[in-house]
């Protein structure tokens, strides 16, 4: 689905999301979202009683909201995304004060047919989980889901190989407004002092390079990504006599999105949101299988 309502998905943009892969959820019922919110709320309150409070000395009531994002999916086979939001209202403030969003997480599947095709009836496939907020809340919510739906969460790391796919794909995207630079960050191994090398390329140059490399619009092959990256490495070597291909690519940044090897992404452009989510769903599924 290419026409996702930009209003509804605006909250997804320009936030750093931490990625997880999630195995299928057993007996997850979309009709019971309000019940789940209540149960999760009670669980969090109980965890806080046990002393696992996030902020010491601050009285916070945590309100949990669980909702369905019906437009956030790829094909008809995909389950619609599920959004979990934690808001707090300080007990000290007045009744009219606004709730403050302290944590959000959402499950989604964009063209995740590879997984959902092969799964028995009672299972719901939402292999990609994205979180923004304190790690302590993430682990509480993760444990509740694991206990309730017998699923398993794992941090989704992104290899240099996958990062180079991302930068090649995203640098080639057509954008109307002036775009920010395409940046690649490398970490150099085996040195006494850690060294990071940042390589920034003018977005038009990057797009022009990709356009000469890509043979079929809409299709990308590993060979094309290799040629693109080799050109960038050769250019850098000509100027600085450093072989970037021997270093570890740890982060890529473009005007469309940025991604870090620890499994953290930021999506900057709503037009390409489905494309980015499709790629991340694929990575999540390959980590599960």
């Amino acid at each position, binding site marked *: 689905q290419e026409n996702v309502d930009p209003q509804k998905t605006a909250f997804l943009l320009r936030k750093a999301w931490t990625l997880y892969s999630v195995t299928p959820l057993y007996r997850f019922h979309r009709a019971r979202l309000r019940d789940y919110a209540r149960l999760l709320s009670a669980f969090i309150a109980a965890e806080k009683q046990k002393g696992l409070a996030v902020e010491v000395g601050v009285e916070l009531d945590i309100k949990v909201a669980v909702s369905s994002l019906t437009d956030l999916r790829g094909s008809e086979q995909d389950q619609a995304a599920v959004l979990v939001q934690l808001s707090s209202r300080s007990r000290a403030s007045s009744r009219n004060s606004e709730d403050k969003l302290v944590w959000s997480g959402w499950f989604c599947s964009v063209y995740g047919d590879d997984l959902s095709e092969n799964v028995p009836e009672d299972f719901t496939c939402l292999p990609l989980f994205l979180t923004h907020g304190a790690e302590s809340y993430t682990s509480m919510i993760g444990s509740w889901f694991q206990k309730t739906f017998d699923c398993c969460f794992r941090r989704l790391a992104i290899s*240099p190989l996958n990062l180079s796919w991302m930068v090649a794909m995203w640098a080639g995207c057509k954008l109307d407004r002036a775009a920010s630079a395409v940046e690649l960050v490398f970490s150099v191994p085996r040195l006494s002092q850690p060294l990071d090398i940042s390589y920034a390329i003018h977005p038009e140059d990057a797009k022009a390079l990709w356009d000469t490399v890509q043979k079929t619009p809409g299709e990308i092959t590993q060979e094309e990504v290799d040629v693109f990256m080799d050109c960038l490495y050769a250019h850098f070597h000509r100027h600085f006599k450093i072989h970037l291909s021997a270093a*570890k690519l740890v982060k890529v940044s473009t005007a469309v999105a940025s991604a870090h*090897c620890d499994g953290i992404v930021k999506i900057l452009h709503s037009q390409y949101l489905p494309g980015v989510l499709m790629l991340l769903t694929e990575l999540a599924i390959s980590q599960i299988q």
Partner: protein
Amino acid sequence: HLATSLPLPSERDHLRPRIDLIVFMIDIKSKYSLKNVEASLAHVDASFFLGKVCFLVTGVGRVNACSIETNAVCKLGEAYCSPVLFCELELEGIRVATAQRLLRMLQICAGHIRGVSALSFVSLMRNANDD
């Protein structure tokens, strides 16, 4: 004998003993190491590809750090009719086992094992590809 690339410096040619086995090491975390190996292969005499060359891919324990597609390395092995071994040098058990395998291969290539020659590796490779 260890070298970072081929060809070996010609000044020492007359001092060098016979070469029985060449092991090309490719670090899965370094695209550069693959490029280096590809460039060095051009300097190897064709007779070595009758069982006296093997590719050793290291660092396979860390799937999340890989910069090279394993498919690309397997294709390289097929193209040069040479076996591809995968190992993780950081784990002692695997390091020792891999060293023992290479030593065994070297013994065969040097003609120290009766009844088996380096050509056996080539025919083993061919059988696997025919499946």
